[in-house]
């Protein structure tokens, strides 16, 4: 191989030796497959990729890849990832989360990450439940989902992640279904290539605590319209969204966040003088 030959990695090159411990049938297996296929299609070597996550079933994903990984604090994956991308802009930074970690505990960070528009790709594996802690309602759980903890359901209107992402300034907004492996992989490729903050809501069934979600494969459908670069038009489309439209909703043109260049050298003596009393 010549020194200038491009490195070609296969999807398997992005999988670590650690076997996932998700439940059999979990949608997150599909997401892992889609992610590794997408990374191979992007032609990025694992050492040029960092995958940052929070807490929850979905957030286990960094350990199952050969990329750099950071399994962080609950709900705080986005600020960690933003910091990493700012100091290491050469890295491709992918953030993995779930609906509890990303929309509840990390809900505030979600809005501000969209607003800041740092060049990140945010994958939220949404199963409308807290799976790791045995089935409590999450921000996207349907209001009538009946459990012993929430008899008759929470009665609370679910969080709409695509609306929030769009309203907060995300530069790329899409929805995928984990079971459509190839489509999900293609959307991840597009999201990584798109500059700025790219958000993909991935419907990823939890067949253990939400066996009803097996029916998602029959409910999802391709969005009847193509993506737009007009936020207002995308917002109008979301008004009639049934939650199962798949595809890219919005491709924005906002310039990604660029930090002010730091001084190349820092004279500690001079720095400390600033604190002298």
């Amino acid at each position, binding site marked *: 191989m010549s020194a200038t030959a491009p490195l070609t990695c*296969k*999807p398997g090159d992005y999988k670590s030796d650690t*076997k*996932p*411990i*998700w*439940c*059999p*049938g979990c*949608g997150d*297996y*599909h997401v892992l*497959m889609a992610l590794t*296929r*997408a990374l*191979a*299609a992007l032609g990025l070597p694992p050492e040029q990729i960092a995958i940052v996550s929070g807490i929850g079933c979905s957030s286990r994903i960094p350990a199952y890849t050969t990329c750099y990984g950071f399994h962080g604090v609950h709900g705080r994956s986005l600020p960690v990832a933003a910091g990493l991308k700012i100091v290491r802009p050469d890295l491709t930074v992918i953030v993995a989360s779930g609906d509890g970690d990303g929309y509840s505990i990390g809900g505030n960070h979600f809005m501000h990450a969209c607003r800041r528009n740092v060049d990140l790709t945010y994958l939220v594996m949404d199963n409308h439940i807290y799976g790791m802690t*045995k*089935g*409590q309602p999450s921000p996207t759980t349907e209001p009538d989902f009946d*459990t*012993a*903890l*929430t008899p008759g359901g929470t009665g609370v209107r679910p969080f709409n992640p695509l609306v929030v992402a769009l309203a907060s300034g995300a530069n790329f907004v899409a929805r995928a279904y984990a*079971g*459509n*492996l*190839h*489509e999900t*992989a*293609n959307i991840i*490729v597009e999201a990584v290539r798109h500059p700025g903050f790219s958000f993909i809501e991935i419907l990823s*069934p939890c*067949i*253990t*605590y939400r*066996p009803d979600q*097996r029916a998602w*494969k029959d409910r999802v459908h391709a969005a009847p319209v193509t993506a737009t670069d007009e936020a207002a038009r995308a917002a109008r489309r979301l008004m009639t969204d049934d939650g199962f439209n798949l595809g890219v909703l919005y491709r924005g043109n906002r310039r990604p966040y660029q930090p002010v260049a730091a001084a190349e050298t820092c004279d500690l003596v001079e720095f400390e003088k600033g604190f002298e009393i």
Partner: protein
Amino acid sequence: MSETSDIEPVRSSAQLYAIAYEIEADAVERYKLLADQMQTHNNDELARIFLDLARAEGLHADEIRRLAGDLGVESKRGPIGSWRTESPESADLNAAHYLMTPRDALQMALAAEERALAFYTGLASAAIDPAVKKLAEDLVEEELEHVELCHRLLRRYPLPSVTPDDDPDPPLASD
């Protein structure tokens, strides 16, 4: 799941060899993944069945690669896949369950083989090029054998007395 319209019309034997190889290679990957899942959850019997299914699909992939000769179907396989959604023979990973039985696994395989059979049957009937038609018909024969094999294997396993719906210790702690 997949539809014949998922991919562009097949115009050459080379294209059909590439598609057939991709279908088998994808099936191998999924059965291996299911075997891993079952191994992780200490269901060795099912892990063995899925590994056997992966091996069977792998043999079919090897045969297609051999027949394709210097077309290089393996090296030309893209990392993502040609299908908009799923390839026809892909096992439905969401149908896996920690209480699934060998019969469930074989039914999963049967459903995948039947989808592949329908896919190649559709291709064979729509093909205009005689060489493509002949190859598609050969693949139909192959898949028919696989469907029959699944039926034969299924007869070895009686209907289970317990289904995932009868879980004596259900995971729904909040139910």
